[in-house]
């Protein structure tokens, strides 16, 4: 068994905190029977603990804060659902716009891809704020990749991953604005330029646009204004 010739100072704290093995506890207790100084020290530490515990503030308002947060999430979702419903009704009226159901499906897919990455805690496979490094990494994994735009205007480049959209691998560049992560999917496309059109899918904003031979999808829990600002930044840098 361990034996303390010296005062077991660190072990005394661990003993007090119930973090010692049985052996360690016995060794400390053996020392305590022989050492008045350590007994007094332990007594002082116990008095300190009682004092701190008696001074522990109530924090009952924390539960109401939690319930406010979850209630707000539910209200926001119901509202998004209602707005989505109106959009669907409008779409149904414009039966000629055959593309709507497909693009609506993709909006949900884009949101789901983003949610999956967040939930897995794996937003980037390459963490880097260097656009050249991100470009090299993507170029090594995809046949055709778009050079990403570096940080600016409050958007920080965080890195990249390759995700899958509509059944094919696509370059996914990740930015952060305040506390929000933004996924930007981009691929070469022949379609003509299109202004960002944000739509809401659950708790996420999804935004589709095209510029100079590149098609973009962006998704985030940041607001629509943030996504438009990021689109503007990308356009500006790529002109």
């Amino acid at each position: 068994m361990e034996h303390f010739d010296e005062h077991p100072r660190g072990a005394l704290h661990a003993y007090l905190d119930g973090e010692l093995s049985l052996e360690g506890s016995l060794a400390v207790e053996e020392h305590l029977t022989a050492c008045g100084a350590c007994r007094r020290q332990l007594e002082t530490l116990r008095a300190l603990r009682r004092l701190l515990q008696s001074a522990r503030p109530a924090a009952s308002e924390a539960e109401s804060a939690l319930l406010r947060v979850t209630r707000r999430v539910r209200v926001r979702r119901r509202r998004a659902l209602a707005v989505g419903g109106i959009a669907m009704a409008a779409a149904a009226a414009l039966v000629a716009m055959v593309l709507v159901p497909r693009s609506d499906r993709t909006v949900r897919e884009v949101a789901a891809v983003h949610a999956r990455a967040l939930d897995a805690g794996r937003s980037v496979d390459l963490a880097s704020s260097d656009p050249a490094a991100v470009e090299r990494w993507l170029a090594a994994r995809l046949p055709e990749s778009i050079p990403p735009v570096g940080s600016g205007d409050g958007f920080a480049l965080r890195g990249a991953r390759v995700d899958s959209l509509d059944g094919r691998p696509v370059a996914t560049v990740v930015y952060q604005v305040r506390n929000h992560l933004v996924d930007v999917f981009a691929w070469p496309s022949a379609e003509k330029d299109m202004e960002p059109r944000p739509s809401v899918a659950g708790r996420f904003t999804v935004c589709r646009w095209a510029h100079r031979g590149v098609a973009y999808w962006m998704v985030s829990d940041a607001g629509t204004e943030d996504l438009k600002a990021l689109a503007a930044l990308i356009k500006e840098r790529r002109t």
Partner: protein
Amino acid sequence: MDDDSREFERFARPHAAAALRLARALVRNEADAQDVLQDSFLRAFRHFRGFSGESPRAWILSIVRNVSFTLWRKQQRDEPADVEPLLEGEPDTTPSPEGRLLEACDASQVHDALDRLPRLHREVLVLREMEECSYREIADVLGVPIGTVMSRLSRARAQLLRELVGEPRSKN
């Protein structure tokens, strides 16, 4: 579709008070603490489905700590620096009335004394003595090895004792 928010309530509710107490220990005022708390709950809600660790409490508290971090940096200018003072000298080996002096302290003296400690010491004391976290949980919240938790905790206790009852050890 509301189910996950209800589920999150059940998941987070037992740890809400601990989260607020830690937030209060880490930021300057009640309004900041409430902001930190709310932001932490939102973040935790977004990610709690991916949670697979052992201690939901340690996970939530580590989020509180991360959210506090941005505020920390703003407030660092007017705070005592986050350094760990070294324990120099030997522990007291003469009888001392510290225990009795401590009995005479009240809650407001304790909070004042805690406020005078560096944040690293304050948070470890709150986690251990008020929330009764294990060393493992504290290590997870702080992102440091258990050995660091132990040494920081013993320094924090020694420093709090000094704040409460004066210099506890004999000077040579």
